[in-house]
């Protein structure tokens, strides 16, 4: 008797209403669109996450490796009730956030990965994720953990998350923190921003294609680059490092 193993291995997703896209002006004055992507767009996202697995700084390596596996699992139907949101500026991929619906009342925040830094892009994307859980999926609370001190400052401190240390989080089994509805409502006016509907030109540009990040975190070739300029007759090793990363010189 033939057995279709795929039917056994593939979880059955429950229906989840879509995240309505929104847009906002970030500190640079650029318009950023946050929208949900389906499985069909995951192959367009993965190539931009992979290089971050080699950035040791601020736990990018851990987060990128996990995001890559979570998105791949989503793409290949090996995770249940996951969703993925992306933040884009002029089509450029700036952040990826994802999470899961655990029950009808509880959501599980998985990751927030900023591909451009310093402009609160990751924080805006995280807020959109919480908005999705609370306002769209109707969750009563979202379980959250942070893998980096930056994440801890952004989530645990800014949202004043409650401890749920009796619940191991899906990310490494570490103690969870929770964003409750009350905490979310308290943060709504200050941290959860954006406008709907997204103007046609913005959303069309975002949907037209996921473009590479213009300034992603990169692994330093030489942590002492500024100093090594001593031995670099062309200028500073920092400049050389950037040229290498931009492909202007070999090696």
């Amino acid at each position, binding site marked *: 008797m033939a057995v279709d193993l795929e039917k056994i291995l593939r979880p059955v997703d429950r229906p989840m209403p879509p995240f309505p896209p929104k847009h906002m002006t970030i*500190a640079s004055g650029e318009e950023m669109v946050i929208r949900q992507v389906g499985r069909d767009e995951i192959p367009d996202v993965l190539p931009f996450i992979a290089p971050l697995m080699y950035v040791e700084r601020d736990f990018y390596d851990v987060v990128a490796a996990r995001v890559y596996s979570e998105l791949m699992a989503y793409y290949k139907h090996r995770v249940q009730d996951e969703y993925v949101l992306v933040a884009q500026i002029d089509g450029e991929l700036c952040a990826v956030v994802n999470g899961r619906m655990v029950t009808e009342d509880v959501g599980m925040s998985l990751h927030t990965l900023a591909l451009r830094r310093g402009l609160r892009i990751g924080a*805006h994307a995280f807020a959109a994720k919480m908005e999705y859980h609370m306002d769209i999926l109707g969750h009563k609370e979202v379980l959250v953990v942070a893998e980096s001190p930056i994440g801890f400052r952004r989530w645990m401190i800014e949202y004043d998350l409650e401890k749920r240390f009796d619940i191991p989080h899906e990310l490494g089994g570490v103690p969870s923190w929770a964003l409750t509805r009350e905490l979310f409502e308290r943060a709504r006016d200050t941290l959860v921003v954006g406008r709907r509907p997204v103007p046609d030109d913005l959303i069309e540009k975002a949907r037209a294609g996921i473009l590479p990040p213009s300034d992603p975190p990169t692994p330093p070739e030489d942590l002492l680059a500024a100093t090594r300029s001593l031995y670099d007759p062309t200028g500073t090793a920092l400049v050389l490092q950037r040229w290498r990363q931009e492909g202007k010189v070999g090696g």
Partner: protein
Amino acid sequence: MRDVYVVGIGITSFTRLEYPLSEIAAYPAMMALRDAGLAAVDHLYVANMGSGRVNHQTGLASAVADTLSLTPAGAEVIENGPASGASAIKAGFLAVASGAYDTVLVTGAERMREVNNLEATDFVATLTHPIAENIYGVTLPSLAAMFTRLYMERYGVTERHLAMVAVKNQNNALLNEFAHLHQRITVEGILDSPEAMTNNPYVSTPLRFFDCCPVSDGGACLILASREMAEGLGRPLVRIAGVGQATDTHCVHEREEPTDLLAVRRAASQAFEMAGLAPSDVDVAELHDAFTILEIVESEEVGFFPKGEGHLALERGETSLEGRLPINPSGGLKGRGHPVGATGVAQAHEIVLQLRGEAGERQVADARVGFTCNFGGFGNNVVCLAFVREN
């Protein structure tokens, strides 16, 4: 006194650095020695504010001298809060001017990001009065915020003016390879858009996030030498023409007029007098914009603009890179970063670079006279320096 020249300069990236503090101090020194074409100096001054507290390391000068293989030259740490850098330059200047030494290495370094931002803020707040200010929870942002509120009421400075300083300096930093912040910002994004309050929240009203400098690691170095030495080295002749320093009350609330920064005024006046220059002679300046309001007020107190009119000059674009008197072309503390002990040296590094004509895309055209203001405490210990390009 003998004339004193800057014959070598070096700097690290201002960011979070992963190597030890003594190396952060030593690497720019190695670059400066190479720049000067020297292998040894007579004496070292190492500017640092917090190694004992933040990095659990004291006796930094000895470590730096040894790291650089400059023993048995004498070496000592100069600590004067965030003005440590310029104080160290002043010490080096006096040592060469007096004839005690012919060559002096002045390096400033700080590794603040070894601790988190809250601890770093707490560390910097130790320069406030321990009994009259610090125990009540005063921090530098909160002092600056109270100062800003008074200034706004008295002189008509608005949050828009503060945002204009932030945008100008952070965008200047885009042209500085070694600056901490490399993100373009706009007034629209940090002040006017519906999301501006989230992008740029209040840290201590009326100061917002982008009104405050980042917490940085970094080092910078100058090599100072006598005229005889300098002429023999063949580098562009940039002379330290004027040095001024003044103090003010430790407690800000004890000042007769809290919106006056008298130490800035006096230190600048001394520096200009020694140099035989006037504020109108200055082509380019680096001012201590730990908070955006400070650039505006210092630009008045040093004499570039009349009191209460710094923000109007800013509005007219006079302090932009293309303006009549570019201020903080390096990005300033706001954009380049503020490793406290290194900042004064980094300001001088930028001015020397400008006067040599080596500042690349941010070069101020025909710069011959430069000026720095390094602000210690909340204006209670200030060092100003004037530089002149001679050849």
